[in-house]
């Protein structure tokens, strides 16, 4: 199968398949879960076939013209392939995990439909080369998030879901205004034809608004901790693996791959994102709700990815791309551990938990390993990404910002170890047995992967290197 059909399949198999899930669900619950896993597996497997093309570093464009410049364009280059692999893999893991997690909740058909649709539209977004179709998949994901956050249908949850949907929709619509401003200047929405064009500063501000709302950077981040009310698999899917990576990917695709940043923007963005990660880390230190801490921690780590990209030098970009992979694995692991703990103890406040390592050894160790990877301690993958981001920042001459980033890393170390000690060590306040086997095995796998990704970091770096050189081709 040539590259184009693989990519089209990667995008449309999950999207179209997701709508068949409720139909299969009518037949039997187990058939539906199996069908959902099958869809997840296919979506995870297909991008892997594209690795050789990614390593070759080439770029193939697939175009289908519609009316008024709104034509459907797919860019298949190392950046999009890398993102597709990362998000579909972690998404697939989460589908397996959710079999055990929600098998006794109601309206599960809708849950699986939305999760698979979520991953499918993520694939679409990652490959799309036309700004409007990028926005289209952006919003489909927003709808899925809204329905998933409100999964438990409680009044407070739905209110939080509405808040999340409105904030991201507001950001996205403002971004759309930016896209249209570019359209009126360059006459097209097609990224491939506009590489290197200079765009007005105001368009940059508008587009950044959308990215910051989707990737929860400080001024627009409060919806992410509030979305902690959703089932853990959703928060894992949202916070760790996929959703927050969209804003960052869009930044790379628009401001690195296509348009150089005009005016003072290259100076302003690093400051904003570093402040965002600092404030989020501070909030995580103060918070006591388990999932809210992890959510704030995601906001803080996303700041790093933005920081790496905003440096626009080789080290920064490689660091950020690696960060997306490593953070995806480690943070998904943390959230799924949190899911097991909350699922077992039915408590959300970390001060009420304690001594769980005795009854949940694997979850405890997995949580510790994943938090080491998030902090950036060597044998784990997280180290390389954070190291490269900071080295990239210093290489770009922003030593002050690098110092603040390191201070945030110290804060991260502090609150993650605080959480680990409060939840897993100390005397057992509410001992509870470990979750079902599928949940624990996924968590173990994620922790193991973070370690393996650290030791054999050379392999993911090959693809990342290809992606960076592909992006940097224009910046040089």
């Amino acid at each position, binding site marked *: 199968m040539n590259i184009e059909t693989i990519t089209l399949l990667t995008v449309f198999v999950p999207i179209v398949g997701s709508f068949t899930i409720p139909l299969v669900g009518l037949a039997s619950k187990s058939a539906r879960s199996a069908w959902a896993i099958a869809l997840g597996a296919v979506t995870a497997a297909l991008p892997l076939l594209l690795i050789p093309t990614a390593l070759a570093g080439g770029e193939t464009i697939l175009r289908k013209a519609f009316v008024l410049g709104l034509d459907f364009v797919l860019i298949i280059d190392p950046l999009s392939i890398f993102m597709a692999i990362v998000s579909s893999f972690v998404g697939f893991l989460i589908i397996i995990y959710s079999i055990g997690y929600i098998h006794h909740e109601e309206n599960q058909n809708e849950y699986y439909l939305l999760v698979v649709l979520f991953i499918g539209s993520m694939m679409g977004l990652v490959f799309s080369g036309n700004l409007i179709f990028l926005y289209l998949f952006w919003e489909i994901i927003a709808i899925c998030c809204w329905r998933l956050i409100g999964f438990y249908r409680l009044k407070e949850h739905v209110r939080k879901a509405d808040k999340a949907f409105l904030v991201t929709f507001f950001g996205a619509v403002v971004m759309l205004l930016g896209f249209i401003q570019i359209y009126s200047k360059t006459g097209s929405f097609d990224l491939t034809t506009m590489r290197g064009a200079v765009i007005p500063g105001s368009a940059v501000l508008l587009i950044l608004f959308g990215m910051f709302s989707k990737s929860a950077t400080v001024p627009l981040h409060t919806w992410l901790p509030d979305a902690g009310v959703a089932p853990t698999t959703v928060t894992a899917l949202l916070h760790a693996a996929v959703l927050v990576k969209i804003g960052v990917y869009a930044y790379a695709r628009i401001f690195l791959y296509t348009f150089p940043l005009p005016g003072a923007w290259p100076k302003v963005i690093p400051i904003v994102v570093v402040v965002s990660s600092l404030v989020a880390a501070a909030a995580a230190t103060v918070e006591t709700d388990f999932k809210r801490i992890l959510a704030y921690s995601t906001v803080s780590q996303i700041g790093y990815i933005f920081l790496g990209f905003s440096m626009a030098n080789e080290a920064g970009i*490689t660091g950020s791309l690696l960060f997306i992979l490593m953070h995806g694995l480690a943070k998904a692991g943390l959230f799924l551990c949190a899911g097991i703990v909350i699922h077992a103890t039915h408590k959300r406040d970390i001060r009420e938990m304690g001594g769980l390592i005795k009854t949940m050894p694997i979850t405890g160790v997995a949580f510790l390993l994943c938090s080491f990877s998030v902090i950036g301690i060597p044998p784990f993958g997280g*180290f390389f990404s954070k*190291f490269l981001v900071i080295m990239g920042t*210093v*290489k770009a001459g922003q030593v002050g910002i690098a110092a603040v980033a390191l201070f945030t890393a110290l804060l991260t*170390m502090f609150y993650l170890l605080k959480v680990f000690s409060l939840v897993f060590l100390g005397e057992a306040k509410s001992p509870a047995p470990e979750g079902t086997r599928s949940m624990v095995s996924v968590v173990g796998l994620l922790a193991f992967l973070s370690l393996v990704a650290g030791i054999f970091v050379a392999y993911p770096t090959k693809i990342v290197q290809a992606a960076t050189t592909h992006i940097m081709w224009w910046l040089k």
Partner: protein
Amino acid sequence: MTPNTLLWPILLPAIVAVIAFLIPTRVKWFREAICLGASAALIYLAFALFAVKNLEFRLPWMGQGIGFELRLFHFSAFILVGLAGFLFLITLYSTVKMSGHPRIREYYAYVFLTAALANGAVLADNFVPFVFFWEGLLVTLYGLITLGRKEANRTAVKAFIINGLCDFCMILGIGILWAQTGTLTISQISVKPEGLAVVAFLMMMIGAIGKAGAMPFHTWIPDAAIDAPVTFMAFMPAAFEKLLGIYLLARITLDLFKLEKGSGLSLVLMIIGAATIVLAVMMALIQKDFKRLLSYHAVSQVGYMILGIGTAVPIGIVGGLFHMINHAMYKCGLFLSAGSVEYRTGTTELKKLGGLAKVMPFTAAGFTVCALAISGVWPLNGFVSKEMIFHGAIESGYVIFAIAAWVGAIFTFASFLKAGHSVFFGPRSEESPAAVKPIKESPAPIVIPILILALLCITFGVANKLPLTTFIQPILEGHVEAGESIDFTPHALSLFTPIAGISILCLLLAFGLHAFGWKKGGKKAYLASEPVHKFPVLHTIYDWAENRVFDLYEQGVIVLNGLAMVLFKGIDRPIDFVYEKIITKTGEAFAGVLSKAHTGHYANYLAWCLGGLVAIAALINALLK
């Protein structure tokens, strides 16, 4: 000796660590045998590599100048030998000491993993693998400390965060270096320390002295002394961390930044060294627990090494480096002897111990030799390296640092007199614990390492030409101006120089202080330090120090929490407030006002329509003009 043998010092201990972890706990002796065999093999490998001297292993890894590059040269070979030696002794020691421990699998795994990472850090020639191995030690440090008492987790976190802070500073330094020189390979970097490079130097220095355990990053060591297992104290703070820390400090001052004699940076180093010596030894003096006393000494001895290297004078540097290996030996010996005392009596409280010399002769003998060595008594290795450091301090032109070193020597000897007297030589104390096991000499695997170390102290002291010429002095080869000779062996042991005279005087003074304190304390050795403790001004400072006022970590945690609260309340909550309250409320209020206008009366609507017509007519009229 092909280049890939360089991989063996890293892979061998790593593989053994995995094997040790996989062997189930109930299988006795098999794990210990493998570990001992491996550490022996490691010593042989280290010596073989030492013989080869220069070997390089380069592997392209992640692009952009980041390669998995290992380089063996004289200095790293020497450190490898040291590390392998101590690993062997600790493994031998812990076969008995740690035999009953529930998490014995993890213990051996962490020990050998630390060995692998340490070897990797020493051999690494590119900053990325260097930091990869260097920071990896954090994980094993955390793991080993949690093996101790149940409440050890607090100290484990404390150690983790302090070392994490220092490693992050080091990364910043490395980043600046990379930005300035454009390369990451350590051997190719040498920068004149001015402008941003000064910041890089300071940051890297923090990384080095943080690992070595100097002020102000030392506070986790005394806590770990009580919480962590004693073999850990002998293994890490005493030996490994000192070797690695001072190795990095030496590489920074010699290779990377070429520190000049009178420069400001060398002054900074010397101040840190001197402060560490004096303050740590003052704290050590008043300790009531044997292990805490030894841990404070470990901190203060680092001060000597930093002072030595800080002088940037060849004799000072050689003295500092020699002191590094000497200190590793006798400090490890002292901790092991404390461990053997604990193994037998179950406690290390000075109050409860006494008169063990007769019952545990070999441990006592080992202890005395090492104690004399640390105090700098004449023929032993401590004297040799301290003299060199004194010479260096004087030669560097600032006498104040030499005086600080001497004050340190006084109190070191005084505190060891107190310790030795109360534990081994004084009368048997009445509240010593009911002897569970008949207190007799510890089994052979515990005593042998102590005696080996004591023997080494003596040989390195008496025959100091051997270690100096083979190990230490070649390190300075390329760094000294052509003319100067770097052979200090002739006057190493000379007693009749004014400096040696002063140091002997200090020892006598210390003896007098101990005797006075002993008599005043009613013949109880452990009260010997009370006069100093009760000294009017010192008393308050001591009390503060006891409740951790000067502790960087405790204050740091308070500051962190405060800052977090400020940021959280100051920025995060208002943003959320803006969304939750302001936007939603104004939206509803605006809608409320509008809906009031819809009263439902027909007349209002009609009035609106006519008003609308007039407005539009006026608008169009205006627009048409």
